């Protein structure tokens, strides 16, 4: 219990928690005949209050596609994003509801998924930073679970998206370098505890909705070892990602 209290205190100190009073509120004027305020941020929650045309609402914060607003008499509730987007600022300009991150030009991407690396199960996670619309820097951290050894793999590379404006499916290709660490599961111990690697990749990505995407990747690796012949491995993986 004490851990929870400490965590709460720390979070409060970091500014997590109830909305602060010092934040300047965003006030919007209803221009539809009325907008509905729901008791929760979901389509099924009942409508608990209605704000009429030319009345104002104060926007407090958002959660997924819902906005917590305060009516003039102090009632609070959740308004659907599409309803709030039709309100106006006091100056008459449209409400500054931030647009969805554009699928073709988003900057950051975070994802995780499942794969097979060297014929063993693989848990993977990645961070992508877009340098241009079609060129990304991709950092991957993953762990494979084999019968003889477990491997922790970290790679960094560049990836090109061939037609970034194709929303549902766009092929990708990339190259990069990486590092793997081996931990034995069954003796004998691996000859080398760690290796440097190089890879090429072919894949595809597509957008499921405004915040969500999938990615598939196939990679041949060349593992540099001290033997006469470099080890060649293969990997494929599939995952889901969010982008900002």
């Amino acid at each position, binding site marked *: 219990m004490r851990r929870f209290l400490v965590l709460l205190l720390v979070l409060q100190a970091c500014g997590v928690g109830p909305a602060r009073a010092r934040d300047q509120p*965003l006030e919007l004027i209803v221009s539809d005949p009325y907008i509905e305020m729901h*008791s*929760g941020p979901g389509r099924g929650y009942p409508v608990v209050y209605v704000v009429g045309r030319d009345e104002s609402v104060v926007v407090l914060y958002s959660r997924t596609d819902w906005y917590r607003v305060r009516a003039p008499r102090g009632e609070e509730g959740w308004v659907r994003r599409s309803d709030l987007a039709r309100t106006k600022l006091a100056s008459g300009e449209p409400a500054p509801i931030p647009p969805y991150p554009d699928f073709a030009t988003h900057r950051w991407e975070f994802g995780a998924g499942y794969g097979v690396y060297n014929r063993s199960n693989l*848990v993977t996670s990645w961070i992508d930073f877009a340098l241009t619309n079609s060129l990304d820097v991709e950092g991957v951290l993953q762990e494979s*679970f084999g019968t003889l050894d477990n491997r922790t793999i970290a790679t960094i590379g560049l990836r090109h998206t061939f037609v970034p404006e194709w929303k549902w499916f766009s092929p990708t290709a990339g190259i990069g370098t990486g590092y793997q660490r081996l931990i034995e599961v069954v003796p004998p111990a691996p000859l080398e505890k760690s290796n440097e690697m190089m890879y090429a990749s072919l894949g595809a990505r597509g957008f499921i909705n405004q*915040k*969500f995407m999938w990615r598939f990747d196939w990679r041949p690796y060349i593992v540099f070892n001290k033997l006469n012949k470099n080890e060649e491995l293969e990997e494929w993986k599939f995952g889901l990602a969010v982008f900002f």
Partner: protein
Amino acid sequence: MEIRPGSILLVSLLLSGCSWFHRGDKGPPPVVAESSQDEPPIVQPQVTRREVKTPHIKAKDFELGAYYGALSIEDFGTNPLYGASVAYHVTEDVFLQGNVARSKAGKSSLEEVFPQITVVGESGRQFTYYDADVGYNFLPGEVFLGKGRAYNTALYATVGMGAVKFAETDHFALNFGVGTRILVTDWLSMHLDVRDHIFESDLFGVTKNTHNVEAALGLSVFF
């Protein structure tokens, strides 16, 4: 190809002709503004531009929490478990979640009956897992406390994978879970989760899928 002196002459003539055409293009003559130099304008604009800064709407889609409960490690008894979780709510239905937790295995029945046998050494009794899950709020709703209070809730299912470190080996693990979330306030929520972590183990000589069920109570904040 042979280059004849005639064609060189022709090309040089053409080039010089082009430059000749451009000789007069020295740009437009400078416009001399006469009125603004001496006389002040009749109407002096007195507008001070106001910087309109639209307030930023804070998105509270992330959830950070801690949980405490019991983990039943197959063949090794039920033991306390504590962990931390982070979630990102993508839509009102779907969320992504990551968990890290730790427990410590007790003695297996074999070790209880035959105390001289050690299946797992003392350092290998730590049971640590991490996982990445997708969750779906399949029964959102409200619960009522008395007459005047309603709290938003959701019953959700999660599926994911990750790794379990037990007996000093990392195992690939799948997990399936069901949980309920009650929002005490809009930023503070209580969770009750039941999750099964499944991984392959051959500690007792036979390779089998072990089911390790956890039940945990958690508290988390939205930010």
